[in-house]
């Protein structure tokens, strides 16, 4: 904006700085609260006035990863003394760690859900970005009859509410046994992200000067060779950005996961709310699960900050 000149302008600017800082604090407060609750002892999670300064604890994470069971009476001193440090943390909360018949400590459902989220999000991202890149190139470089209509069609598939699509997909998956499988969810997320990746990649492809390939074609490259050796490297940044966006969408998806998976392929978003607790609420465990789950996305957001606008707006707006 215009250079700050007058003193009125200057004081206005100071006001704006203060305003932005306040807004940023308000917007980050809930995220900070999640992160801090993840390290609180349970009795400090719901205090009034809220606890801000406390001795951080690792116990929410121990509880997050283990299967626990409520104790009616405190463990005997011998039991307590014999237990490893992490099991004592569970004892302190009035619970004990559940062991299998062979004495192995049982995991909670969280690690397998986290793994499922990784499997589904990564695979569907690779498929959606792969197919999207090819298709975007096709739309960007070749003449296609009814191009606008086709692009509209591709876009419109993304606009369907998940619950609307989920009803028939549920019935179809039932017929072929894809309910509660990784592939079932991967296919859905790929379809969901494909339209997005086509639109975004088309924008990136349009920006690559076609003279590059033309020169290569004249040099005797085939179109395929030109695509792989000239276009793809040029589009690498765009591909990476698109991939991260697809990943985040798949990673965060809730409705399909809620409906189409139960156990084997269930991802973290429908699972984390189920950690509310079995007899008493334990917000620290939910916070710990949420915190771990949000970390990858927070990191990606920082990596991606220069592409955010484009990704969020389907490539409709360029920065």
């Amino acid at each position, binding site marked *: 904006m215009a250079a700050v000149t007058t003193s009125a302008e200057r004081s206005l600017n100071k006001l704006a700085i203060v305003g932005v800082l306040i807004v940023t604090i308000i917007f980050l407060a809930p995220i900070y609260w999640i992160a801090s609750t993840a390290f609180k002892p349970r009795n400090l999670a719901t205090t009034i006035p809220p606890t801000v300064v406390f001795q951080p604890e690792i116990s929410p994470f121990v509880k997050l990863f283990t299967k626990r069971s409520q104790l009616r009476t405190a463990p005997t001193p011998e039991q307590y003394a014999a237990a490893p440090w992490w099991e004592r943390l569970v004892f302190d909360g009035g619970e004990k760690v559940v062991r299998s018949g062979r004495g192995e400590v049982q995991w909670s459902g969280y690690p397998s859900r986290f793994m499922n989220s990784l499997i589904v999000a990564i695979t569907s991202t690779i498929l959606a970005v792969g197919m999207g890149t090819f298709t975007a190139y096709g739309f960007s470089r070749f003449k296609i009859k009814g191009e606008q209509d086709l692009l509209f069609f591709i876009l419109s598939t993304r606009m369907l509410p998940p*619950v609307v699509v989920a009803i028939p997909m549920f019935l179809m998956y039932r017929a072929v046994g894809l309910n509660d499988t990784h592939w079932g969810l991967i296919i859905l997320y790929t379809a969901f992200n494909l339209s997005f990746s086509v639109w975004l990649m088309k924008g990136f492809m349009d920006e690559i000067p076609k003279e590059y390939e033309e020169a290569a074609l004249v040099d005797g490259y085939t179109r395929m060779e030109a695509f792989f050796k000239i276009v793809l490297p040029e589009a690498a940044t765009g591909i990476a950005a698109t991939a991260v966006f697809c990943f985040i969408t798949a990673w965060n998806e809730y409705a399909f996961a809620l409906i189409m998976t139960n156990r084997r392929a269930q991802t973290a978003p429908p699972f984390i709310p189920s950690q509310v607790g079995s007899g008493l609420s334990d917000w620290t465990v939910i916070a710990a699960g*949420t915190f771990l789950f949000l970390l990858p996305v927070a990191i990606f957001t920082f990596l991606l900050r220069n592409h955010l606008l484009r990704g969020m707006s389907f490539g409709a707006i360029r920065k």
Partner: protein
Amino acid sequence: MATAVMTTLDPKSRSAARGMSDLTIRNLFIIPTIVFLIVFNIFPLLYSLGYSFTDFRASSAAPATFVGLQNYRELLNDPFIWSNFAITAKYVIVSVVGQVIVGFGVALLLNRDIPLKGLLTTLLLLPMMLSMAVVGLFWKLLYDPSFGIINYTLGLGSFEWLSNPDMALYAVAITDIWMWSPFVMLLSLAGLSAVPKHLYEAAAIDRAGSFYTFFRITLPLVAPILMIAIIFRTMEAFKTFDLAYILTSQPTTEVISIRLYKMAFQEWQTGRSCALAYIVLIMILAITNIYVKYLNKVKER
């Protein structure tokens, strides 16, 4: 543009003779995607169109019987369904208006000489990148009348955000505004930075008031891009499911997606839910159409 590429490639040229023809490559690149989307998006919809005329229940072994338009007729005459639509509309309006005010306001602030602007902008974007379901769950604790930090910070005592039927929808909308204002902010920033500086300089020379400058210069020039943000958010808000589903179970927050989910996967009225899905679908298509028209308009600029 595309024609230009085509014509430079003489079909008899050396490169075209080797390898696949452009036509093959084009088809190879585009058709699988189109087919994939048809199979996994359009075909299921046709499949459910058929069921929408039956009394099929996925929970029973009984075969489906054709009932004609009965499902549609009964749904359109069901006052509960209409109230679900009314709730959805109210939710869309409240949350989108809120996002535009907050988002555009913050963009105006950020569009000045702010130190660490890049970092602050990125931090502000964080909420919308997070999972609605997971973060939304945590807002339950923030809203809690006995232990929540919101009431404590604002000194609201034991104000009931989610338990008060009249307040619950606003509480859900506030969470949505928190998540998605950054989106409007981001688009507005792009629009604001595109306003040519000489217009402001000219206005300053004319001694135009800041009020005048805002309404006559800033707003009209940012309007198209703001419109995109509004349409985007309207569509997303219309589809909303996770947030309202996780935060409350008030009838006053039962948006249409939640009703649809309950009908399909709790009551197992599969045929009827297919019909309701179609009613929702038609509305979505109408909004999408408006959206694409605007999108094309803006792109032409």
